[in-house]
């Protein structure tokens, strides 16, 4: 994509896009031991690729309209999760820009904010609060969150004493309760028993029906077809196809699928 293309696109893109990624690229170091010096660290946004670095994503451009459900497809290590993190704005692009209008409910590392030594109750208030919910909002939703996680008997148990399944359940219950217009899902649904998984799926469908925008990374073709209308196919850090989900899956299967 040339500079003028990008300019054209930017001009044409309607102002309503909730996510707008323009020529975004992010670069990581290949190995930890690569020499790092103060000069590198402080150089603001050098475009030059230094030795020992690679572009995890580059020249990625797309817009997402409100209410769209987007599945990201690609093999391991092709930049899917990195793209999700860029959209969640937990990492920043080295070139190009990522614009996100409205809040994001990131189902990424959902258990990350939970503190082992605090009780489940305290953790719910903490995590929901850090994601921007007000105390009054949390209080009014608290019962629903607990009910969803099926964890009523353990409200005052320290988080560390929960089973790993319960940990994920309460975390999902909290983050999926955030009243944010954009939901990001990164394969968190691979855990939990089947009944809970189905519950999560139903919850996601509810959210979609409520007009949320969904951005999901998954290897499960079934899930992708169930939720998504549009697919993004990433390969070697490039966005190679942006099309309806069926078409994207077809291309992916043709290139990498088990014959």
């Amino acid at each position, binding site marked *: 994509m040339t500079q003028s293309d990008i300019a054209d696109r930017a001009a044409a893109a309607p102002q309503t896009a909730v996510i707008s990624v323009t020529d975004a690229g*992010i670069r*990581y*170091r290949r190995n930890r031991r690569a020499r*790092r010096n103060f000069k590198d*660290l*402080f150089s*603001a946004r050098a475009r030059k690729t230094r030795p020992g670095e690679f572009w995890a994503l580059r020249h990625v451009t797309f817009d997402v309209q409100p209410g769209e459900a987007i599945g990201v497809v690609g093999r391991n290590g092709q930049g899917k999760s990195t793209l999700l*993190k860029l959209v*969640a*704005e*937990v*990492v*920043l692009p*080295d070139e190009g820009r990522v614009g996100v209008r409205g809040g*994001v409910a*990131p189902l*990424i*590392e*959902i*258990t*990350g*904010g939970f*503190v082992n*030594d*605090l009780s489940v109750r*305290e953790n719910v208030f*903490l995590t929901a*609060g*850090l*994601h*921007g919910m*007000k105390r009054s909002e949390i209080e009014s939703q608290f019962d629903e969150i607990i009910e969803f996680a099926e964890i009523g008997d353990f409200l005052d148990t320290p988080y560390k004493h929960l089973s790993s399944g319960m940990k994920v359940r309460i975390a999902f219950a909290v983050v999926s309760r955030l*009243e944010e*217009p954009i939901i990001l899902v990164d394969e968190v649904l691979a855990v939990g028993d089947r009944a809970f998984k189905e519950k999560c799926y139903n919850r996601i469908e*509810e*959210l979609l*029906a*409520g*007009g*949320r925008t969904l951005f999901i990374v998954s290897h499960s073709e079934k899930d992708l077809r169930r939720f998504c209308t549009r697919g993004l196919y990433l390969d070697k850090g490039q966005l190679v196809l942006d099309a309806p989900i069926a078409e994207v899956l077809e291309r992916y299967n043709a290139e990498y699928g088990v014959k």
Partner: protein
Amino acid sequence: MTVALPERGARSPLARYWHSLRLLATRDLRVRYSTSFLGYFWSILDPLVMAGIYWFVFTQVFDRSVGAQPYIVFLLSALLPWTWFTGAVSDTTRAFIKEAKLVRSTKIPRTIWVVSLVMSKGIEFVASLPVLAFFVIIGGAAVNPDLLLFPLAIAIQAILTVGIGLIVAPLVVFFRDLERAVKLGLRFLFYASPIIYGVTDLPQWLHFWASFNPLSGIFSIYRSAFFSDQLDWSMVLISAAMSIVILCIGMLVFKRTIRSVLKEI
């Protein structure tokens, strides 16, 4: 069940910042107090034991020639803020490493990770002030109106500590050695700052250099509440200016390095 997008009261970025900051600072305190039996007492026990040791060494073993009477008040009036300073700075060396998972999954402004540490230690400092009051009464120290300058000292110290934290926190992610270097630096700074002595006890030629230690000015304000001769406005001015400069450097360093920090953790 319908899940229509509800109308939410818009909150300004500043209100959100403050909200997250408060949550994290209270979380730190809650964790500290829920996991230990003595809880609050640990935060005052440390400076108290230190003060006890120095009081014993300098009044019972040696003949004290520095500081002022009552020496225990003289000591504590600088040791308590020092405990805040050293605790916060050494916590910030681990700010990103300890919170890596949370930093990777939430997008709150990243300076909060440093500021919340300074704040939770600051709250502990304020909570430890009754101990100072206790010894002031026991020791019969005279209190003078300079006591009203406490908030000024707290403000300068907060600016200084946040500034240092903003420099240290991101750099430690890349240079782990810095963590130990900071510890060593803090130990040096303890003796290089007017804690067990006052600036006036230093030889004349050192006065000039001592005033460039921003802690000198800050501690002189705290002390002036009980020992009015300790207040030196030129020193306070220098330390306020230096604290602001350090904060600016910190914000610059933080802004320039945060992109790499987020990738690294």
